[in-house]
């Protein structure tokens, strides 16, 4: 029969093709493999190559822009490490997809800045609320085990084009995002709970909202925020919402957007394209988030998984991330940076927001998934439909 013959031929061809194509990555098929799930801003080529060079382990990355899809990946495929932010680590932990990390096997963690050990940089600085890694990352009271090991973190604030948006001493309030003067030139984070968190920050700054817990708004508070957002949408206040880092860079670099909630790497990239961009020190404080590595509950490569985590804290990866604007909780990366870079990136010379130390003391809130997220999503969809 025509079909059967063709199917057989096709099957054979497919098998041969699959074998040829499936193993394209650099290192030979020999040796260990590590299955890592992450995003394009951490699983970067230069970092993966160096890891393979040092350890002989080939990394097989699974990259997806959606944090939910990344966490769910652990359900359907054998994964060794899940790289994620505190928000979805909480989710993966509750769903028992990851296992506790024994911090005794991660000696570099002892050198983590106080922000991550205690949740506040100095005893006087505010304890950022929400999913503060310093508070929630540990799996036990003695802090010997962790749900995940953060290796990069970032402070979100207001990014703006200084030619269009004036800011005294580079200080702006979160409320500036909703200043009607910038109508049509504003962008906001397009993920429901994060966008609403930023909106709530702004509204609180403008005195329009007085929530008890900014990261867990009550239903009435959510309604207020959404009503406000809907009004702004009707006025054409938002040029576009951004969901991915690359989108925001393009929005600001093309001049479509003058002010947005952004983080430092965005500012760097936009400046590289010749468009002036600065990153304000927020009056109320930064919104921070920390991405790190966790170990899958079903991993068969436990040793390799620890090697991966230790590699990230060893310094090389931290230095490469610092070059594009992220910070490492552990100070091991200075040895991989030039003295100039150390001055700029860490001591904050010529950098908006100043040194890392300074930033650490000004964290106001951490990215947090609210408890009643379903309600958030439904109301956000209302906002989109309006």
């Amino acid at each position, binding site marked *: *029969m025509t079909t059967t013959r063709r199917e057989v031929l096709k099957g054979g061809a497919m098998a041969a093709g699959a074998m040829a194509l499936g193993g394209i990555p650099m290192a030979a098929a020999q040796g260990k493999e590590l299955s890592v799930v992450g995003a394009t801003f951490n699983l970067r080529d230069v970092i993966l190559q160096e890891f393979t060079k040092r350890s002989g382990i080939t990394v097989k990355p699974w990259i997806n822009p959606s944090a939910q899809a990344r966490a769910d990946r652990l359900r359907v495929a054998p994964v060794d490490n899940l790289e994620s932010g505190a928000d979805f680590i909480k989710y993966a932990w509750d769903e028992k997809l990851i296992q506790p990390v024994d911090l005794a096997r991660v000696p570099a963690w002892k050198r983590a800045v106080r922000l991550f050990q205690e949740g506040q940089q100095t005893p006087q600085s505010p304890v950022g609320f929400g999913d503060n890694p310093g508070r929630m990352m540990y799996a036990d009271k003695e802090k010997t085990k962790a749900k995940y090991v953060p290796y990069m973190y970032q402070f979100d604030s207001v990014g703006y084009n200084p030619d269009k948006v004036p800011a005294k001493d580079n200080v702006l309030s979160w409320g500036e995002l909703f200043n009607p003067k910038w109508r049509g030139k504003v962008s906001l984070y397009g993920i429901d709970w994060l966008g609403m968190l930023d909106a709530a920050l702004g509204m609180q700054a403008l005195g329009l909202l007085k929530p008890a817990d900014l990261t867990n708004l009550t239903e009435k508070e959510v309604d207020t925020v959404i009503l406000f957002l809907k009004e702004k949408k009707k006025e054409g206040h938002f040029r576009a*919402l951004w969901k991915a880092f690359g989108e925001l860079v393009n929005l600001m670099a093309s001049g*479509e957007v003058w002010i947005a909630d952004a983080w430092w790497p965005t500012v760097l990239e936009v400046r590289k394209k010749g468009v002036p961009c600065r990153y304000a020190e927020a009056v109320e404080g930064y919104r921070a988030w920390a991405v790190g590595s966790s170990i899958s509950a079903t991993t068969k490569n436990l040793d390799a998984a620890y090697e991966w985590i230790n590699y990230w804290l060893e310094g090389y990866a931290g230095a490469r991330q610092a070059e594009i604007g992220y910070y490492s909780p552990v100070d091991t990366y200075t040895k991989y940076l030039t003295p100039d870079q150390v001055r700029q990136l860490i001591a904050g010379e010529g950098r908006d927001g100043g040194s890392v130390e300074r930033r650490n003391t000004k964290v106001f809130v951490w990215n947090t998934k609210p408890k009643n*997220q*379903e309600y958030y999503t439904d109301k956000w969809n*209302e906002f*989109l439909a309006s």
Partner: protein
Amino acid sequence: MSTLRERSPAGYALAAPAGLWMLGALVVPTIFIAWVSLWAARGFTLASPLTLANYAKFFTRPAYVRVLGDTVQQALVMMLITGVIGYSIAYFLVVHVRHPGLQLAVFLLLVVPFWTSALIRTIGWIPFLGVNGVINQVLLLTGIVDRPVEAFLFSRTGITLSQVSFYTLLATGPVVYTLRNIPPSLPEAAQCLRATPLRVFWRIVFPLTLPGVMIGQILVFLNVMADFATAQAIGGHKHAFLGNLVILLYESGQLAFAAVVAVLLMIAMLLGVAVLLKVVDIRRLGES
């Protein structure tokens, strides 16, 4: 007689591979999703009790019903625009372009962009429509406007503008096919009988091309209903059609509700096709 005896086992054997493939890779997953849409549990548990509450949730929230309406409305608008433009182009190509080589060349010019990934083309539309983009530069240079028009991008208008580019070919192709199959003797005969060109078109040519028009409309309808990438990228994430809802709901962990939207999307698409098929039965495609 033909190479296939009627009702022979060989016939069933030939039909089996395609049929089984569709059953396994389409029908079974669809039924599964329909089952998931009835789950009362939040997460992924096969033992979940079943309920219709998820569907009730959709229809009792005006926002969601509105998204359904918006999606259908967008599809109808696109059908109209692509239908008119598509027919014009098809008619021009078949009737007015005499040289067959030129005909082929123009047709190829229409088709080749389709071979470039739709995602890349979508991304390419952003600089085209933006405030510094080509359209605005042209408008500024010719003095039609004195400030760049913002409404082209990150708006419903922008979505429509780019979708016209993507989907008009779907409306053009089938019409070209049916126009070609009209034997020239028919319009000639009508003209001999002193019919005006308009009457020739309206009473003879257009009805004969109706199957092609309908296929085109169905194709455009299906594509626009299911489109989410254009709405996302060119709409600036500010709008949601049914396709976007599925992804949004999945990403916020509402699995069953995402399945509900997926099922409703499918039902809407099937209903639409059924309605369109009532106008013309496309199974008779090609029969004169």
